[in-house]
């Protein structure tokens, strides 16, 4: 049987559409693996901001002789700065995801062809 079957082209089109949809939305496992890889770098961001704040506070304490009040205050500021860094990085990720979803939208195709074979 060498002649092309009548619904061969629609099937391939359907396959391509399904593939594009599948690539548009990664599996939960991929999402988790990606979050793990990205998360370690964001965790360092939070820790370093706290440490920088504490170090600045310690330096100011030594300079003004007000140990340990400035250390505590700057520690809190560092914590807030760390969370700010984190929120910024996460919203950057969010923007990328919404952009990817917008790009993936028009691949949905009408696939209810009623051809019989």
């Amino acid at each position: 049987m060498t002649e092309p079957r009548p619904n061969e082209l629609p099937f391939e089109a359907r396959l391509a559409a399904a593939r594009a949809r599948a690539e548009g939305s990664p599996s939960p496992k991929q999402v988790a693996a990606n979050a793990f890889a990205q998360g370690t770098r964001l965790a360092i961001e939070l820790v370093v901001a706290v440490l920088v704040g504490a170090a600045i506070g310690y330096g100011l304490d030594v300079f003004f002789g007000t140990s340990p009040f400035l250390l505590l205050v700057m520690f809190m500021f560092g914590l807030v700065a760390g969370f700010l860094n984190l929120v910024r990085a996460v919203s950057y990720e969010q923007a990328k995801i919404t952009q990817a979803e917008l790009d993936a939208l028009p691949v949905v195709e009408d696939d209810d062809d009623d051809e019989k074979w």
Partner: protein
Amino acid sequence: MDAAAAQLLGAGMAAIGIGMAAIGVGLIFGLFLLGALRNPAAAASQQPQLLFGFAVTEALGIFAFLVALILLFVV
């Protein structure tokens, strides 16, 4: 107690915090997969929240690790 022994004991106790962070990370990813496998289409849109929760939990683990390092090498 010997001062060096107390130092090592303290560092070991600080390392418990890393294990606690590991429990937290396991909970976060386990609960994420629990929800994501019920509704895989929504999984990708929840990645930032997953990222945020994981980063905060992991940061607390790194703080515990830092305390252990400070006890071992600085104090």
